[in-house]
């Protein structure tokens, strides 16, 4: 299907979106993700006696694992559709974008499909993150010496 056609179809099918409801859902979902994360961090700290930094590292690992698994099991796409930014802005969105492009392009072959499209969506995050961090460090160095 062509891009324009697809856009028209999406516009026709999707109901008029309630912006306020979207914002509230995103707020609650984003908050819930953070709340669960905080529970896991505190749990790891008390059960295994980890430091806060180590527990944070394990938390990122767990969250990415769960997000990739749920994406592979096909649950995550629906949730992202519904919660939008509530799941896109936390690390789950980053994991979801990589996992879903990996799954989508796997049929095109391991090198030309999976390999070259792996960072298709997450690439911009890494690129602009590195560029902005680099520029800001240079600015900081020039200002602060």
């Amino acid at each position, binding site marked *: 299907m062509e891009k324009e056609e697809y856009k028209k179809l999406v516009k026709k099918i999707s109901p008029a*979106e309630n*912006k306020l409801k*979207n*914002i*509230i*859902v*995103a*707020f609650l*979902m*984003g*908050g819930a*993700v*953070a*709340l669960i*994360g*905080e*529970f896991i*961090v505190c749990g790891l700290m008390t059960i295994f006696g980890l430091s806060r930094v180590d527990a944070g*590292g394990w*938390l*990122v690992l767990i969250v*990415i*694992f769960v997000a*990739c*698994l749920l994406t*592979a099991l*096909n649950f995550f796409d629906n949730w992202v559709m519904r919660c*939008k*930014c*509530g799941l*896109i*802005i*936390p*690390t789950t*969105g*980053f*994991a979801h*974008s*990589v*996992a879903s492009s*990996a*799954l*989508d392009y*796997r049929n095109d072959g391991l090198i030309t499909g*999976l390999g070259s499209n792996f960072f298709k969506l*997450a690439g*911009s*995050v*890494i690129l*602009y*993150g590195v560029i*902005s*961090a*680099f520029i*800001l*460090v*240079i*600015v*900081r*160095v020039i200002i602060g010496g």
Partner: protein
Amino acid sequence: MNYVYAFLFSGIVCALGQIILDNTKLTPGHITSLFTVAGALLSFLGCYDYFVAQCGAGATLLISNFGHMLYSAAYQGYLEEGILGIFSGMFTKSSLAITAVIIFSFIFAIIFKPKD
């Protein structure tokens, strides 16, 4: 109190993203890039460490934390090794997230059948 702050901070940032998404033509890809850059900028201004101390997982789970880790790792690299340290130190803190994403996504892409 930590739980409340975590919930509120993460919720407010996500709501902010949703407002931008709904009222402009930007795609989710734009939003995540924007928030990563915003995280680096907040880190540059010295706010993000305060957010992490106050909100815990509320701040560390956001994509903005990626920008924060890139900036703080690069700056730490500069302090330790000079200009070379900016390049060698850029990914020291965020390599955990990137490596985890690569490993898990690859394994699941191999194991599971793609959709359709």
